[in-house]
């Protein structure tokens, strides 16, 4: 093939490509748009009833105590929030449990322990749960995650002629944020 015909063919190809470029899809100069990603971090406080207070099977006339150290049956609450957060902890405690046909069963001798780690063996403080608040702080310092663990025990005192059946009630733990 001669040199001139090669040149002519090349030019024709270029022209065809240019036509396709304009008539069909086209590349373009870079165009950029921007958006923002935004979020607002709110500092929460979370209170969780982690473990119900369970006495299991109890026999009439036989008192039964669940100690706050009982890992399986003691009541346990967990408070999470800003490290070092200052809180006041108090309780609404029942004096009786409700059973079948309106029967009741006394509960008392509440015991408690709070700690910044999930342990009842050391590092925390014992207290007597009541409507009077205990003030304490979550673990850590502000700007880090903080925790507080609260453990609860009590004694039930069924009468010798206690009506058989299931007895229950509710414990409410109040956590007031006193740092603001």
């Amino acid at each position, binding site marked *: 093939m001669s040199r001139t*015909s090669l040149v002519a063919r090349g030019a024709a190809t270029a022209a065809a490509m240019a036509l396709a470029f304009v008539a069909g899809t086209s590349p373009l100069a870079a165009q950029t*748009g921007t958006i923002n990603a935004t979020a607002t971090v709110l500092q*929460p406080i979370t209170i969780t009833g982690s473990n119900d207070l369970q006495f299991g099977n109890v026999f009439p006339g036989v008192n039964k105590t669940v100690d706050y150290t009982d890992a399986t049956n003691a009541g346990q609450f967990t408070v999470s929030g800003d490290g070092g957060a200052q809180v006041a902890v108090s309780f609404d405690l029942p004096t009786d449990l409700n059973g079948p046909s309106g029967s009741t069963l006394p509960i008392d001798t509440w015991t408690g322990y709070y700690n910044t780690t999930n342990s009842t063996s050391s590092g925390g403080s014992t207290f007597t749960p009541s409507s009077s608040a205990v003030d304490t702080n979550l673990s850590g310092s502000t700007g880090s995650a903080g925790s507080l663990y609260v453990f609860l025990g009590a004694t039930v005192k069924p009468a010798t002629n206690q009506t058989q059946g299931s007895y229950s009630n509710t414990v409410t733990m109040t956590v007031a944020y006193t740092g603001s």
Partner: protein
Amino acid sequence: MRRMRRIITSRTLRAALLPLVFVLCGAGSARAKAPMLTVARVQDLTFGNVFPGVPITVPLTDAQAGQYTLVNGTGRSITAQLVFVLPPTLTSGGGATMPLSFGPTAAGFSATGSLGSIVPFDPSVPFTVTVAAKTTARVFLGGTLQPNGGQTAGSYTATISLTAN
């Protein structure tokens, strides 16, 4: 004969090159006008209120997902490659950072602009799209925030750019 071939050759070349020159000039003048594919912000990617230690994902179809438009005002369809610049974190005014990530289907392209025709894609790799003549397409972007357990309270922000090449 040689003279004859020379004439044919030059005529052939002229015939071939003329449209090329015409086309290139035409294309040049078209390009000199307004951009053919305009990328514009519609809305930010808004995570709203978030809590320390609680990850949150905004899906690309969510009302809070980020949105851009790709406007093709020309009479020709345009093929472009979409390239995101994705920040790894959001930053607060005090300098605190919060990890931000984008999954393989965090972005979506809709040739018609409607949610029903979204084609998901990975915003971390270039994605080729075609925008038909005289239409507005949309690009959607979701993401996942992972505030740590001690994340400082406050407002966080970052800029996300989208380039159409």
